């Protein structure tokens, strides 16, 4: 066994993912350096970090998105490597370049893979070249509105306008006819410019009744590329996932299809010389034909469900891969899956309008069934501000079969007690009892079509209030 030098790793992120990364760093016996900013001095992820470093500023542009300042911090604190988490600078080519120039390891794929896959147009071309099916559409960023309309006509409506540098469901819009394209072209361009610093837009065919299916990839610097099976993330609102599961219930028992989509993902990762954890996203139509959407060159929010069914620690492997270490995985056949895992994203938002609802967590307790994992950043006193993503935790349950995972999830949702803060827990409860979800044949249109949000019970329950007030009184009495 080789001894590995203790490395100093900066976590350029916050919230639950920073906690998750810090735990992995601790486990590997490296030193984790956490960041706190002026608008979040009591950041909960610091609890798991060895060192706490202040990043001055109150806006994300001044802090988590500030490349020069983060590089400066790295130099000052003698950082060997940076883990970007997801969001923020996780897929920013300039950040990777800046780290490279300063001799700091980026815990993620190499610069080439990031820049190629980070650009939706280039990634699509590359996928095409590698023989991977892609959604019909513009090969490149569309320069003008007229061009966008022309392409839309060629491929047929509905079409999707999509930011070249986008991700996370922002900077995209569905257009059903020419008028929509006219209306949205500039708006989406502006959105893209402000969110990603790149106004370039793609036009592509919009697949009806689609399933969002993605394949987890893990590769090392020695040329090994493995897949860890697929996830289905079709329960979405505003193109953002809220429930994910692994394996995909839509693929179900179709092992040939499963192998096909997973190997397609591996082929793409090989074609771009991928060397870290990543996700290849596909859209699958009713006919089970799938098309490459994009590759996310980072760890994803929903990685825990893959960890649960395969038993692999993706964050640990990602760190090992970045340092050129062995992943300890002999071959693809060695990776097996068992059981079924579901993740519900717990967001500080109105369960009906699904709009962010900042607030203060006045109480927080959990009563979970066996087989529950909760990656979160919650604590009593947490102030959820509009500065950051409203997601405050990820509730994951695993069962031997899907029905068991769902049963455990229902129990886990009942046992997730958060007071003071509006969350989407009531919505998750409705979905987990909803027939289309239980059947496992739901598309990305599920929320729109079945509107589970309309079935959230909002009736005021006096008994519920008494219980809470009794707790307050008991606390006042010093019970």
């Amino acid at each position: 066994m080789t001894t590995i030098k203790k490395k100093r790793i900066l976590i350029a992120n916050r919230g639950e993912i920073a906690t998750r990364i810090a735990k992995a760093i601790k486990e590997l016996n490296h030193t984790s350096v956490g960041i706190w900013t002026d608008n979040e001095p009591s950041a909960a992820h610091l609890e798991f970090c060895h060192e706490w470093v202040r990043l001055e500023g109150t806006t994300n542009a001044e802090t988590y998105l500030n490349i020069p300042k983060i590089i400066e911090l790295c130099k000052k604190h003698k950082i060997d490597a940076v883990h970007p988490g997801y969001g923020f600078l996780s897929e920013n080519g300039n950040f990777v370049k800046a780290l490279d120039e300063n001799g700091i390891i980026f815990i993620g794929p190499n610069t080439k893979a990031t820049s190629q896959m980070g650009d939706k147009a280039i990634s699509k071309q590359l996928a095409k070249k590698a023989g991977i099916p892609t959604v019909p559409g513009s090969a490149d960023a569309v320069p003008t509105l007229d061009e966008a309309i022309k392409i839309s006509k060629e491929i047929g409506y509905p079409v999707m306008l999509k930011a070249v540098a986008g991700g996370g469901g922002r900077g995209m819009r569905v257009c059903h006819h020419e008028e929509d394209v006219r209306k949205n072209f500039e708006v989406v361009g502006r959105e893209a410019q402000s969110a990603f610093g790149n106004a370039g837009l793609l036009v592509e065919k919009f697949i009806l009744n689609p399933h969002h299916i993605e394949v987890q990839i893990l590769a090392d610097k020695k040329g090994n590329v493995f897949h860890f099976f697929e996830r289905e993330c079709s329960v979405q609102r505003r193109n953002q996932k809220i429930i994910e599961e692994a394996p995909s219930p839509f693929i179900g028992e179709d092992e040939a299809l499963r192998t096909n989509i997973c190997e397609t993902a591996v082929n793409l990762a090989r074609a771009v010389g991928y060397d870290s954890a990543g996700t290849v996203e596909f859209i699958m139509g009713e006919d089970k034909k799938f098309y490459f959407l994009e590759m996310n060159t980072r760890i994803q929010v929903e990685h825990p469900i893959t960890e649960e069914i395969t038993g692999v620690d993706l964050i640990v492997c990602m760190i090992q891969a970045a340092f050129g270490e062995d992943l300890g995985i002999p071959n693809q056949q060695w990776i097996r899956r068992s059981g079924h895992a579901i993740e519900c994203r717990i967001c500080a938002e109105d369960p009906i309008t699904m709009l962010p609802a900042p607030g203060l967590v006045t109480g927080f307790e959990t009563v979970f069934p066996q087989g529950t994992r909760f990656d979160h950043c919650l604590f009593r006193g947490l102030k959820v501000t509009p500065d950051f993503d409203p997601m405050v935790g990820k509730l994951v349950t695993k069962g031997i079969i899907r029905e068991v995972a769902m049963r455990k999830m229902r129990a886990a949702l009942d046992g997730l007690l958060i007071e003071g803060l509006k969350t989407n827990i009531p919505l998750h409860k409705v979905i987990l009892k909803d027939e289309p979800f239980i059947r496992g044949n739901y598309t990305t249109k599920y929320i729109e079509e079945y509107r589970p949000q309309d079935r959230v019970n909002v009736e005021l329950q006096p008994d519920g209030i008494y219980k809470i007030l009794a707790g307050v009184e008991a606390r006042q009495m010093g019970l």
Partner: protein
Amino acid sequence: MRYYLIDADKNELIVDLSSTKIHNADLVEYKFSTLKENKEIHASTVFVRKLAGMYYSSFDGISWAKLARQEIPTKMLNVNKVYDLYRGFKPSGLAGTGAGEMVTQMPGKIVKIQTKIGDKVSKGQTLVILEAMKMENEIKCGIDGVVKAIHVNVGQALEQGVLMLEVGKP
């Protein structure tokens, strides 16, 4: 002790804690009722029990559910609606009383007056401590302003509806 829950549309819900019975160091019984236009529309008895440092609640003393322990919160949530929560006092300016007029919501004895005439005070600031039902209640100011008049003294026993203090615009 009375609780006032007021939503963004100024709909209000009054919850009365009519009795508190301490069974032992780890078990307390509370009687609550909900009032609408001064009429009781719902009532229940709730038990709270401390177990392994956690709070559990029960309606029958047999089946128990864990509670997320809270200090006195200023907000209370019901699924998609957040209520402002006032314990023991109704904020001035609501339901008829003139802004800044602090009126006793229950009979009690003045324990402390934490302000004097002419003081600049802000919304939410505790101005008076009133002992009622064997509990000290912080009477908070409902608006930002200046203390114009104090009508009560420390030690004085008051009936419900007595004007204690007036806060007005500077």
